[in-house]
């Protein structure tokens, strides 16, 4: 052991004697010193987002009513501060009617308008708020006088005033806002959690300075270590000592890694100290990035070392390391371009058994119907714009639904919206397609504002779940009258058809998840905080039968059936409850920290399935009260899961759907369309090469995981679980890079042990 410790110590000495190390350390110090004045301050709820306004219509109506009335009121104060454009858009509606909805643009612009309003010192007026109870924080802020408050405190106070004035329409602020300062400069507050901002900042900084600069400098500096060790005159001396040749190579290799350990460690330690001392966040996870950096460097250095021992020339070592980087970058880029731009949008994410056929939806929110005759997916419910407009590569959209109404043999959906950006649907008209109509697209009537989920009960009634509860459709969903144009938006309608409140009368947060029990029409609802079960009464109205508050505020997906409710939440936890009292029966955590995307249950309520964002499926056998292990293929590539009778339908390989027999676990049938040229190139060329190639570039994901603790969410991703998320594969790059290092270093050891020096 002693000889190898001597080699390691020598490497350390060599690193310390290297001028480049000190130059890099000085540069790193300068960078850290430049970062130190950055301040990240957290403020609670200054900025309004769409999620904060739980009932936009009621809020606007209230403001308008208060503005029209004589006595001073918050509404009057707000009205004076709204932009003229906005007021003009609101004006023609006249006296607000309880039924008519405002055009989408009104809701869309509301958070921005309110953000302007709360920035104004003139908002508060003691008379206007005279009858309203303020909380402690607001009273404290008011006590000193508004003039003495800084801009941020004014915004905070105003926000609290609005929350107090409109408790039913504006959610109490839970969202954090972060303000970044640099010396005297101050960036506008952003509606993000401070923790996330710091994690993102540290990730970007350490990745740039540690990986890009550090690894590059490391490769340059360490390239000479192995060639020098194996140069004539030096290697003879070493090999005459009682040491193993392989271990000499291995130890020299590890010694080279020490360089990056010193340099990267210094930068990360500095960032950790800045995060702790300046930003008040002592996050030990930041320090975990150090081994990731060293590991990343170890991949490149393995190549450099092997070249160094074979050619004994530092220049050749550098060239080989750079060529290797270029090859990895090339392979990674080809995969990284083809997959998200051209293939991921093709992935089927929803499978809806409909009228002895199968309907599928892809990530681009295109709806397909399987054609048995020519084994192909045929696009249905296609809009005329879709035919004309080119589909930009990489576009991912989500739609609400489709749901299949077996009674009327029709398909209903709320079309694509850019939900991943957190926008409310701007055009919330339903689309309808019937089997008789050969799934031709028919424009439907407008769905209630804020519709998050569409459900169909056993009678074929369409239910829309909104943050205010349930609405049900009476009449025909197909618009029979030409749509009225209001502010450029079409508002379709049909005589006698409308959505009416169907019970609940709830105030739900978003994002919402809901599911209906196919046996008894009970509905499970989850809104990040509360799990509820609603039952239809004799009059067809839904009443809450049970509810359960969750300790943590996290989004989730639900499934209900067989007297059980399954709730899978963003932290990867899956809970099984009984549907009658919502008592927790079991808890599982099959995918560690992966977030679930979809959950479903078989018609008999015996089998539950949860599909995670890492495209792995987990199943639960309700009768046996244990996870169900079916020999399904394609784990890690599954994009949709659904039940059809006694069959489980799974989509993989972008557009392939396999049906498994639930009782035997055998493949019952497969819908396999012909692969496109790109898919063939990807599946048989790019993918295999990518699999065997090391993935140093993806170590960034590992660092992101270490910083955030989540495998499938990156910072800034929406909390809507059903929206597509970039799949962060944490372990794949680790294993593939480890295997690569083992092979290359092993080759180096073999070469050095066989070579005559």
């Amino acid at each position, binding site marked *: 052991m*002693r*000889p190898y*410790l*001597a*080699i390691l*110590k*020598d490497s350390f*000495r*060599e690193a310390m*004697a*290297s001028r480049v190390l000190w130059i890099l350390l000085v540069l790193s110090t300068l960078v850290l010193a430049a970062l130190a004045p950055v301040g990240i301050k957290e403020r609670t709820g200054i900025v309004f987002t769409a999620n904060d306004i739980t009932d936009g219509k009621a809020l606007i109506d209230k403001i308008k009513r208060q503005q029209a009335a004589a006595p001073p009121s918050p509404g009057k104060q707000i009205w004076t501060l709204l932009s003229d454009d906005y007021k003009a858009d609101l004006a023609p509606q006249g006296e607000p009617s309880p039924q008519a909805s405002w055009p989408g643009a009104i809701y869309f612009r509301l958070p921005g308008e309110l953000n302007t309003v709360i920035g104004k010192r003139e908002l508060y007026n003691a008379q206007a708020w005279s009858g309203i109870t303020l909380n402690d924080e607001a009273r404290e802020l008011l006590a000193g006088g508004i003039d003495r408050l800084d801009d941020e405190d004014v915004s905070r106070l105003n926000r609290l005033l609005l929350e107090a004035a409109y408790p039913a329409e504006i959610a109490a602020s839970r969202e954090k806002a972060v303000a970044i300062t640099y010396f005297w400069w101050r960036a506008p507050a952003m509606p993000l959690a401070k923790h996330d901002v710091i994690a993102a900042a540290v990730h970007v900084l350490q990745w740039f300075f540690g990986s890009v600069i550090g690894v590059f400098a490391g490769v340059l500096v360490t390239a000479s270590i192995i060639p*020098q060790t194996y*140069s*004539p*005159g*030096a*290697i*003879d*001396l*070493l*090999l*005459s*000592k*009682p*040491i*193993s040749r392989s271990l000499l190579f291995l130890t020299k290799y590890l010694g080279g890694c020490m360089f990056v350990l010193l340099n990267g460690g210094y930068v990360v330690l500095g960032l950790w100290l800045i995060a702790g001392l300046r930003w008040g966040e002592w996050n030990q996870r930041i320090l975990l990035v150090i081994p990731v950096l060293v590991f990343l460097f170890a991949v490149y250095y393995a190549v450099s070392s092997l070249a160094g021992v074979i050619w004994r020339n530092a220049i050749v070592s550098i060239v080989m390391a750079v060529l290797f980087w270029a090859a990895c970058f090339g392979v990674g880029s080809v995969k990284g371009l083809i997959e998200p731009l051209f293939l991921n949008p093709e992935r089927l994410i929803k499978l809806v058994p409909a009228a002895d056929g199968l309907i599928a939806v892809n990530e681009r929110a295109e709806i397909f119907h399987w054609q048995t005759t020519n084994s192909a997916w045929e696009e249905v419910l296609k809009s005329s714009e879709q035919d004309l407009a080119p589909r930009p590569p990489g576009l991912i959209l989500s739609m609400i639904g489709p749901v299949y109404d077996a009674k009327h043999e029709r398909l209903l959906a709320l079309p694509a919206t850019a939900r991943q950006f957190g926008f409310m649907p701007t055009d919330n008209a339903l689309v309808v397609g019937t089997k008789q109509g050969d799934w031709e697209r028919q424009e439907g009537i407008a769905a209630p504002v804020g519709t998050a989920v569409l459900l169909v009960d056993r009678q074929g009634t369409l239910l829309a779940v909104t943050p205010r509860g349930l609405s049900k459709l009476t009449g025909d969903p197909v618009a029979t009258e030409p749509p009225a144009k209001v502010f450029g938006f079409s508002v379709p309608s049909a005589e006698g058809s409308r959505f009416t409140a169907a019970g609940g009368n709830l105030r739900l947060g978003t994002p919402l998840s809901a599911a209906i029990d196919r046996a008894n029409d009970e509905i499970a609802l989850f809104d990040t905080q509360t799990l509820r079960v609603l039952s239809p009464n004799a009059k067809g109205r839904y009443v809450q039968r049970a509810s359960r508050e969750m300790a943590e505020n996290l989004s989730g997906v639900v499934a209900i059936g067989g007297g059980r409710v399954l709730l899978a939440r963003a932290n990867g936890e899956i809970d099984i409850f009984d549907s009658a009292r919502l008592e927790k029966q079991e808890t599982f955590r099959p995918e560690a920290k992966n977030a679930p995307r979809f959950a479903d249950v078989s018609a008999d309520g015996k089998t539950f399935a949860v599909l995670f964002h890492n495209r792995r499926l987990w199943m639960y056998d309700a009768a046996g009260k244990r996870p169900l292990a079916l020999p399904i293929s394609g784990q890690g590539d599954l994009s949709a899961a659904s039940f059809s009778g006694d069959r489980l339908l799974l989509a993989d390989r972008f557009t392939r759907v396999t049906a498994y027999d639930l009782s035997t676990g055998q493949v019952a049938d497969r819908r396999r369309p012909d692969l496109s040229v790109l898919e063939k190139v990807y599946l048989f060329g790019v993918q295999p090469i990518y699999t065997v190639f090391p993935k140093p570039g993806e170590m960034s994901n590992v660092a992101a995981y270490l910083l955030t603790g989540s495998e499938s969410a990156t910072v800034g991703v929406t909390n809507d679980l059903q929206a597509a998320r970039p799949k962060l594969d944490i372990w794949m790059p680790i294993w593939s890079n480890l295997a690569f290092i083992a092979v290359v270093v092993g080759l180096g050891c073999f070469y050095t042990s066989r070579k*005559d*020096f």
Partner: protein
Amino acid sequence: MAVEPVIDIHELRKTYRDGVFARRRVEALRGVTFQVGAGEIFGLLGPNGAGKTTLIKVLLGIVRRSGGNASLLGYPPGHRKGRRQVGYLPENHRIPAHHTGNTALEYYGGLSGLSLGEIKRRRPALLDLVGLGQWGKTSVKKYSKGMLQRLGLAQALLHDPKLLILDEPNDGVDPVGRAEMRALWRRLKDEGKTIFINSHLLQEIELVCDRVAILVHGLVERVGPIDAITAQAELEVTWTLIGNQADIRAVLQLGAAVPLAAINDGQVRVSLTAADQAAIDRHVDALRARGVSIVSMSPGRKTLEEAFLDTVRKGDGSAQGTSARGATAAVGGWRR
């Protein structure tokens, strides 16, 4: 009781492969046999490319042998236990530039398995011994060639090895330093260490070595004690004579081409080789019978350099003529 040789080489062969597809074969050692006994100072001589360094590298396991047998301190070539007891100073060795004399000894001592405490205990005396007592804290970047050789010797001695293998140890060392080195080697020999020197400085080898081997084209042409190598097979006598030159030529059967070197007072000098003493006696009688005065007769002796050159020339000839010849037999010296 037979004593185990420190180095025992038998029919040792090494063939390098060269060229793009390793198709060209270079025979560096073509069947070398000799032994080195404990406590000897043994010199390995040979022209450039004779295979001297290859032989050392095979013994230390730095290069693999292609055939034959060898043992180092009773262990196969390259065995770790053997290497542990060897101090090696390679030709043109390179000590990494980030070291000082002290840290270099720490590094190489550590590689030999010594603890830091032990290294620190031995280091001052050792640096004094090789004449670097004042230079321990100086970076090796500032060392001269001779100082680097001394430091190389110090690292070879640090772990108190039984056998020292020195490849061109006095390369770059000044004459005073060389004398010091020779004195040091003799002292080490007195301590019972075996020293194997590979050098092209023949005078030095002549001054310190007990035995030498001359390697030519991968074959041992001569091996034995210095005296045996430098002794002549035929008796060479240098005659200083006074008398009729025609008589002298006739008696000594000198051809017309052989010059008679004239010195003062009518003396001439000529060197001749004779088969044996009887032939010399006959020449004396005949010269006296012709009235030639014999001023002096002195028997000749070669220097090591002459013996080396003779051997190399002979080896060159035989290499060209009978390159497929097998091993040169071990001569005299050490036997099991």
